[in-house]
């Protein structure tokens, strides 16, 4: 038997779902849309008694968002997969004025309901006393008081569900013209009147104001302190992504090099050894190294979300972000993408407007992800002299250039988003209109669960493609072999490089450079080792970086190397970004478009750089 939890946003529905189903749950998407579908099981004595669905929050049956439409499909029992045998309506006891709307709407249509009055611990603390019998009589439904935070009433709720075991939902016929009716002011006002009347009749002692949330908001939304807190938090995210995850990343790198070394000694066959060590272990390890950053970021975002802060951040940033064509909620994804584009793209889920979410995803590749740093470092070392700027000993040219590259990406992202805002097909008007939830203390269990799910999504969805591309690239740089040895000049990769050489000649890249660019499709940071391979500079030797840098200058000249630097500011991100974007945008069109526009930008701007900086 399938039970669906339904309710307005921010009524503690998901917390209740977690309490009901414990660890027996699964997160996926509803078919065809990127609306999260959470299913779980209630298990008793090792046997499943109920399948529980946590439906997206819905304000009313006048569904306007994608999330709401999914929930409405369930209420209308449109398809077999989108149906339930019993609806449990979750109400927020600390805010009945809002959450009773759905109760009346569903009751009037004749839905048999089981009502769960959630958050009663908090409402009682704030002095609310209700005449439950009056509520029951008026709503014509059984009412169970629960508190998902403490688990109070959850057993009663399951018992009440059991009383409905075997029930089938009767066919609900919606009135004709229901779409018009649900949006009619007279109808809406009628329900408001019923709510006000019922609350007057059944409130024995009124609810005190939420002084806790008000006190926090005094500081968090303060004109000066509010911005200070927001900047501090954003800085903390940066810090978290770059520094705190470093030791864990080192550990993962160490693990993979340990694995590679062991595999090297264990595998006799030279070719298989190369496949396993260079192809699989190094390739996959190079991407898995970003998993700690991704997980830490999501821990942080989920913490702020559960706390109720994320909406406040969007509220404060909205007017600024909107001027550059993006919603306030895009702050977090854009910031995260400085670590890695993948968590950035995953984090765009907080943006409800489809078009704005798409624009955010499309500009994310322009921000400077951390995988580009090794490439930037080598190139800057090669072409930028380490001199002081303006005679200031602490302000060095290389640092300034690095900062300039970050700014270039950031400013390009703003310009491109302004262009997309003007040109991309317009679907629905951009709305800020959102409810700010009261503050609540995040539950560790929920945070851990969300992190596990994100890790799973990253590993399963992106992992397969990453493995595949790693093996393909290994194949290209290894074959064909002569007398069991690889000669890079004759490899398939070099063949591809030579094929593209004419295209890149205006930028001053020869076949060696184009060959070295191929592995960057898998991951940026491998370009350094690819360059050393084609230029025959032995990696890992002493003074390797200086040697590579001087070889680069000798072989290509300043103009081409600057062009290469600019190329990396704009060039399409790695294949994992493509894979995640394909999944998140639910289309092949947009990731292909992303690659096309970034390639065009990269080529044109690199070419321009080459022309400007080549002495004639």
């Amino acid at each position, binding site marked *: 038997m399938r039970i669906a939890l339904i309710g307005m946003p921010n009524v503690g529905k998901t917390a209740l779902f977690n309490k009901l189903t414990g660890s027996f749950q699964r997160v996926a998407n509803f078919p065809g849309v990127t609306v999260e579908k959470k299913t779980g099981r209630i298990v008793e004595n090792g046997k499943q008694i109920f399948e529980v669905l946590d439906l997206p929050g819905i*304000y*009313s049956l*006048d569904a*306007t968002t994608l999330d709401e439409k999914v929930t409405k499909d369930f209420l209308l029992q449109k398809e077999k997969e989108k149906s339930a045998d019993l609806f449990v309506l979750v109400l927020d006891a600390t*805010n*009945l*004025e*809002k959450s009773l*709307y759905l109760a009346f709407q569903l009751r009037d249509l004749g839905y048999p309901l089981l009502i769960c009055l959630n958050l009663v611990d908090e409402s009682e603390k704030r002095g609310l006393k209700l005449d439950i019998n009056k509520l029951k009589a008026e709503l014509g439904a059984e009412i169970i008081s629960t508190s998902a935070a403490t688990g109070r009433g959850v057993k009663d709720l399951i018992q009440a569900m059991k009383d409905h075991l075997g029930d089938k939902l009767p066919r609900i016929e919606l009135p004709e013209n229901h779409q018009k009716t649900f*949006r*009619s*002011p*007279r109808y*809406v*006002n009628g329900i*408001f009147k019923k709510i006000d009347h019922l609350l007057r009749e059944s409130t024995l002692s009124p609810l005190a104001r939420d002084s806790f949330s008000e006190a926090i*908001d005094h500081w968090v*939304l*303060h*004109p*000066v302190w*509010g*911005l200070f807190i927001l900047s501090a938090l954003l800085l903390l995210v940066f810090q978290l992504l770059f520094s705190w995850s470093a030791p864990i990343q080192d550990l993962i790198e160490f693990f993979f090099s340990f694995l590679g070394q062991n595999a090297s000694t264990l595998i006799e066959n030279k070719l298989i050894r190369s496949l396993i060590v260079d192809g699989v272990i190094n390739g996959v390890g190079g991407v898995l190294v970003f998993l700690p950053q991704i997980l830490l970021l999501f821990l942080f975002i989920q913490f702020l979300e559960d706390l109720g802060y994320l*909406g406040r951040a*969007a*509220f*404060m940033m*909205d*007017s*600024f972000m*909107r001027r550059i064509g993006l919603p306030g909620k895009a702050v977090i994804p854009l910031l995260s993408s400085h670590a890695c584009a993948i968590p950035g793209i995953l984090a765009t889920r907080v943006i409800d407007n489809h078009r704005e979410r798409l624009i955010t995803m499309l500009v994310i590749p322009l921000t400077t992800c951390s995988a580009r740093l090794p490439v930037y470092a080598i190139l800057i070392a090669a072409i930028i002299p380490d001199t002081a700027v303006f005679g200031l000993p602490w302000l060095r040219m290389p640092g300034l250039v690095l900062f300039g590259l970050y700014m270039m990406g950031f400013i390009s992202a703003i310009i491109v988003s302004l262009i997309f805002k003007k040109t991309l097909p317009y679907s*629905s*008007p951009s*709305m*800020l*209109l*959102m*409810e*700010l939830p*009261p503050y609540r203390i995040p539950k560790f269990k929920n945070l851990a669960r969300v992190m596990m799910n994100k890790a799973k999504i990253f590993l399963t969805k992106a992992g397969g493609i990453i493995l595949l591309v790693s093996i393909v690239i290994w194949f290209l740089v290894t074959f064909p072999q002569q007398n069991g040895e690889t000669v890079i000049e004759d490899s398939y990769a070099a063949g591809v490089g030579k094929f593209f050489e004419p295209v890149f000649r205006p930028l001053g890249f020869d076949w060696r450079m184009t060959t070295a660019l191929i592995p960057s499709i898998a991951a940026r940071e491998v370009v350094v080792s690819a360059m050393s391979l084609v230029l025959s500079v032995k990696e890992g030797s002493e003074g390797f970086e200086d040697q590579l840098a001087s070889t680069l200058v000798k072989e290509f000249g300043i103009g081409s190397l600057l062009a290469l630097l600019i190329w990396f500011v704009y060039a399409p991100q790695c294949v994992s970004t493509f894979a995640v974007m394909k999944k998140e945008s639910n289309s092949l069109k947009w990731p292909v478009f992303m690659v096309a526009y970034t390639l065009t930008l990269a080529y044109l701007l690199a070419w321009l750089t080459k022309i400007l900086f080549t002495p004639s």
Partner: protein
Amino acid sequence: MTIDLAPLNQNLVVRSFPVSEERHLSDLESRLMHLGFFNGETIRILKKAPLFQEPFLVEVRGRMVALSKEEAALVLVEVLA
């Protein structure tokens, strides 16, 4: 006056929203109405966001709702005497 021009922290009463029964309401107007921006409801503007003095944070029917300037300009209000 509309919400974007109304004073902070005073009881305001919504006038003439939604405009009429016959006119088709947009998604945005409908959402505003469902959140409680309705003739006769009492609301309060709690805050304006820093930087550009928008969006607005409004208390309406027990909720805290954030409205952009354009959204706030849709709702007519009057200071409650």
